[in-house]
């Protein structure tokens, strides 16, 4: 399988706003939120890569960086060998017909004043595809495939007239209308009701096969990741702590954080008691992250050196890497 | 927070009602209300009626007018004499008079004062500089004024405020004083019957009898002049008994109401103040005198008096006010009041018709002449439009703009008013129709024949000649009509019934020491 996307040393810092007096007194030295901290990974064509972690781990930022909705602070992103970070904005805009993103909240990712048909068809106008009639035909066709039926009825509806599941389908349709080959799915089911989640997951699976798609699937739910993904990366405070194939990662988790996450997932199986001890406290602020391994203050296995040096990614087994000193 | 609100609300209600209705002050004081304003507290700079009025009561002139009269009597000078040519006046000063701080009043003080006025070049300084060449101290109690030429009415000038002797130890030599606090000693005391004991601009001036006054002690010990922001407030204060006397200036409706009120005494003073319409006569459409005549004919003065001023002012049919020498009612006889037939005839003559009416902007200034100005403009418009050949649009501008506009010839017709600089028909005529005066007023009227007549009247002292000239000028005025007179103003004083001694004559000098409480 050829490599579709390669992320190398990607970093994103958000400056923290300072007030005018501080600027005058202390100059423009700023604090930063280290949202994404030097991460690297690659995605093969036709693969589903899961990006999992707690909220605040930087997984959504990573998704946005790949589409250059946010400008990376450092690092490079290669799409089919082309570095997307260095190309001109215009060129990037054109490339967005090939790379698409689906957000967590379908309701707010649709303009309340654009009808379903307009919303789905708009990318075609932007990328100058087809005539008016062709576009409409294409939209109706895709709406049918994606289960937005009756298509001609829903075509003129506005987002507030749709149910949650329908909205998410509209968002998916909009992402697919320009026939992209890569989709970043940013927690697409997190806001949906339980019974709708399965529908969307199944739909995504179906579409992947039908349109020959590659997904970067961002989620906080490891069960979903396990269900859908070929490989999974675990993020903590802006860094990838462990990455590996599905079977490896779930069958043989290595990093203490991964283990904790797995243990914490509630399972619909009564009276199964947790044996693993849960990490202490909550995820710290990304403005001044802990030194060394970010996880060390919460880690049950922390050693003195964990607070001193940053552990590097190392291979645990083929296709399975972890950034932990226990690894050595 | 609730407590905070309760406490303050209680403050309002309790203190407001309990204390305010409780005690009253015991001191007998005359409170005098006015809407005028004090300008500079310096005789070398002040040039308005009200500030002069105060000076006339805290200072004394070498010569003065008795209350309500127009004859000049000795003041700080016991006597005066003129040389034969009439260009030197010598005053013998009263002896033993002292300023409050002990400085003796003498000839040096008079010379110091006049020199100061000349040096500071204040607004009224022309009353000195135009006439006086120099002042000589003959001896301690004799002072001589050397004039630029013979001036028969110099005694009248010497009774004006810029000639009032000041205390050289109190006033700064080279600076105009605005507030009494800038004076040495901080108090404004002169040689007059009253002294200023406290001064708060636009709020109050408190006068008390001056113990060092050489003349008769005033009957009222303390006079408070209270400054009101508007006539309405002053009227209410009078009605509520907060003030004893109200003078300048009330609205017509207030005057009408107060005159009917038996609690007050009304004094009506005929003033030298006139109102009139000006035309730009060099460039505007009104350079055609027929149009000016037509305008004049359409004005219905009695109606304006009745509607706007409730008949409190007099219609005026000449630029020279009624009661002044050489006055004639020429406008009444030639153009008349509301003479629509004549106006229509004149307008037709000038080529206007119902279909092609004379269209122009009538300008007025809304606040300089008081609240009635808008009404007057409205009534004028209605009167003018009684002729179907006129279409009037009213336009207004504030005073500062107004003045610029008439200088720039931007207004064809505009309303103005006039307080004379000196009481003489010349000041009511040459100032408008003489070439130089006319330009300053924005009328831009110029006629050598007229200028010749003005020169004749100004240089000739023979009353018969002047009478003839002024009668001729007034007649010619109805033909050329560079301005059209509307009315002559009256002034009203209201006092509570127990106040007496309001004696204000044509000079408009108000002597407070004549005031008394009837008991």
């Amino acid at each position, binding site marked *: 399988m050829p490599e579709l996307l390669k992320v190398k040393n990607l970093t994103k810092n958000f400056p923290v706003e300072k007030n005018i007096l501080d600027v005058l007194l202390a100059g423009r030295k700023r604090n930063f939120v280290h949202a994404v901290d030097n991460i690297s990974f690659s995605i093969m064509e036709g693969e589903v890569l899961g990006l999992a972690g707690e909220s605040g781990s930087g997984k959504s930022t990573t998704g946005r960086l790949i589409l250059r909705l946010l400008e990376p602070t450092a690092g490079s992103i290669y799409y089919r060998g082309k570095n997307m970070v260095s190309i001109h904005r215009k060129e990037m805009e054109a490339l967005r017909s090939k790379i698409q993103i689906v957000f967590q909240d379908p309701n707010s990712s649709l303009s309340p004043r654009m009808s379903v048909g307009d919303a789905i068809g708009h990318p075609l106008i932007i990328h100058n595809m087809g005539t008016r009639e062709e576009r409409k035909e294409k939209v109706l066709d895709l709406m049918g495939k994606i289960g937005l039926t009756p298509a001609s009825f829903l075509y003129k509806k506005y987002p507030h007239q749709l149910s949650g599941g329908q909205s998410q389908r509209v968002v998916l349709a909009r992402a697919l209308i320009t026939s992209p080959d890569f989709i970043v799915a940013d927690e697409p089911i997190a806001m949906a*009701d339980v*019974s709708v989640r399965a529908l969307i997951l199944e739909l995504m699976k179906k579409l992947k096969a039908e349109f020959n798609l590659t997904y970067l699937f961002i989620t906080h739910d490891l*069960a979903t990741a396990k269900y859908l993904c070929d490989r999974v990366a675990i993020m903590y405070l802006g860094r990838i702590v462990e990455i590996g194939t599905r079977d490896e990662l779930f069958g043989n988790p290595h990093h203490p954080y991964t283990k904790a996450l*797995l243990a914490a997932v509630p399972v*619909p199986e009564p*009276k199964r008691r947790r044996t693993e001890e849960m990490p202490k406290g909550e995820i710290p602020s990304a403005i001044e992250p802990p030194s060394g391994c970010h996880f060390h203050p919460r880690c049950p296995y922390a050693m003195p050196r964990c607070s001193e040096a940053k552990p590097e990614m190392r291979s645990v087994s083929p296709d399975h890497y972890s950034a932990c000193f226990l690894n050595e | 927070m609730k407590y905070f609100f309760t406490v303050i609300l209680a403050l309002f209600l309790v203190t407001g009602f309990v204390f305010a209705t409780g005690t009253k002050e015991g001191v007998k004081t005359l409170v005098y209300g006015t809407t005028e304003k004090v300008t500079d507290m310096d005789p070398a700079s002040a040039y308005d009626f009200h500030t002069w009025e105060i000076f006339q009561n805290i200072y004394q002139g070498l010569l003065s007018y008795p209350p309500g009269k127009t004859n000049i009597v000795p003041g700080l000078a016991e006597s005066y004499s003129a040389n034969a040519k009439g260009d030197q006046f010598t005053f013998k000063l009263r002896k033993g008079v002292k300023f409050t701080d002990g400085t003796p009043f003498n000839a040096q003080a008079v010379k110091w004062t006049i020199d100061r006025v000349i040096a500071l070049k204040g607004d009224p300084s022309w009353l000195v500089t135009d006439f006086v060449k120099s002042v000589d101290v003959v001896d301690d109690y004799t002072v001589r004024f050397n004039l630029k030429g013979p001036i028969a009415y110099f005694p009248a000038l010497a009774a004006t405020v810029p000639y009032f002797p000041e205390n050289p130890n109190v006033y700064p030599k080279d600076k105009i004083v605005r507030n009494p606090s800038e004076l040495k000693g901080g108090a404004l005391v002169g040689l007059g019957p009253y002294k200023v004991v406290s001064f708060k601009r636009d709020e109050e001036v408190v006068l008390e009898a001056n113990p060092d006054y050489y003349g008769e002690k005033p009957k009222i010990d303390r006079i408070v002049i209270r400054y009101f922001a508007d006539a309405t407030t002053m009227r209410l204060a009078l009605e509520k008994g907060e003030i004893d006397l109200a003078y300048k200036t009330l609205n017509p409706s207030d005057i009408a109401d107060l005159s009917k009120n038996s609690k007050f005494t009304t004094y009506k003073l005929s003033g030298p103040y006139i109102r009139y319409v000006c035309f730009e006569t060099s460039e505007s459409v009104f350079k055609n005198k027929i149009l000016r005549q037509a305008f004049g004919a359409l004005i219905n003065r009695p109606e304006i008096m009745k509607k706007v001023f409730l008949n409190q002012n007099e219609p005026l049919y000449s630029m020279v006010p009624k009661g002044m020498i050489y006055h004639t009612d020429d406008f009444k006889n030639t153009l008349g009041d509301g003479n629509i037939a004549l106006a229509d005839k004149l307008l037709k003559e000038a080529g206007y018709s119902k279909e092609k009416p004379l269209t122009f902007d009538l300008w007025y200034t809304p606040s300089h002449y008081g609240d009635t100005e808008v009404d007057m403009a409205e009534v004028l418009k209605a009167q003018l439009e009684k002729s179907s050949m006129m279409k009037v649009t009213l336009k207004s501008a504030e005073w500062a703009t107004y003045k610029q506009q008439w200088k720039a010839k931007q207004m064809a017709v505009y309303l103005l008013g006039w307080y004379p600089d000196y009481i003489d028909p010349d000041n009511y005529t040459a100032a408008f129709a003489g070439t130089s005066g006319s330009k300053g007023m924005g009328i831009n009227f110029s006629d050598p024949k007229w200028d010749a007549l003005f020169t004749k009247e100004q240089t000739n002292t023979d009353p018969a000649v002047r009478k003839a000239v002024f009668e001729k000028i007034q007649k010619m005025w109805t033909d050329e009509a560079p301005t059209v007179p509307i009315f002559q103003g009256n002034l009203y004083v209201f006092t509570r019934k127990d106040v007496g001694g309001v004696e204000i004559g044509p000079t408009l000098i108000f002597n407070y020491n004549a005031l008394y409480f009837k008991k």
Partner: protein
Amino acid sequence: MNKPILEIKNLCIDYPISIGTVHAVEDVSIILNKGEVLGLVGESGCGKSTLGLSLLKLIRPPGKVSGGEILYRGKDVLKMSGSEMLKFRGQNIAMVFQNPLTSLNPLFKVKDQFLETIHYHKPEIKQEEAVRMSENILESLGIDKERMHDYPHQLSGGMRQRIMIGLGLIMQPDILVADEPTTSLDVIVEAGFIDLLNRLRERFNLTIILITHNLGLVAEIADRVVVMYGGRIMEVGSADNIFSRPLHPYTFGLINCIPNIELEQKELITMPGNPPDLVNPPPGCRFAPRCPKVMDICKEEVPEVKEYNGRKVACRLY
């Protein structure tokens, strides 16, 4: 079996809105025994939160109970007077809400909120005593007592949720109603919170009603589960039964429509269609339009909750 501590009988709750009336809860009967943990499960809009609020008579107007009764130790909660109700809330039933970020008054210190609660219930307790009580309860929740002097914004989400529990338990109520207590918490914190609940339950001999859409949570802690759909009860049973042998098609769907990390699933069960419109609900079984095993009669008549093999289910298949 001893007497139930709380008995809900045929409860109906309506919300009149501009376009009609929402029948948020219809004909719901639940029995709660002392010391048990009851899981109340359903998707959003199924009426589970409204039911929880009604236990404390806290339904927001214009919503109102239109029928049925709630018996606490045999006394009808709905008929309690205002002052009785104030005592009842807090001393008999406590409630913990979904969002710990917004459930504490931001302008008052933690301590003040504890002291206030104690003051209104037991004015006779002295300040020092009240402080000590609060410190004790905080310690049992694993929070440093120094945190008493903090304002809510100075605390993390997990801590705030614990303090909410502490505030609920300070007057030692019998029943704790927890309405989606973990939805806004991260997985690891959630897991810790559930462990805490299990400990508290033993320590205070609590009866807990856990309202949630997360079946995993229910499985971890609940003794008995009530499944609701469209304002009605679909199935009631012990946790073991419900999860291993669900009777109702909806329960079955609900359990199998989400990925299970323990299993290797090839395909998820999907339930097509949308949740019912509660203003004009379908005439028959609420679930009929989405049910894979639907029969004609399901669309016409509302099925009763029936006993079946010692379990309760509202389905015509049984």
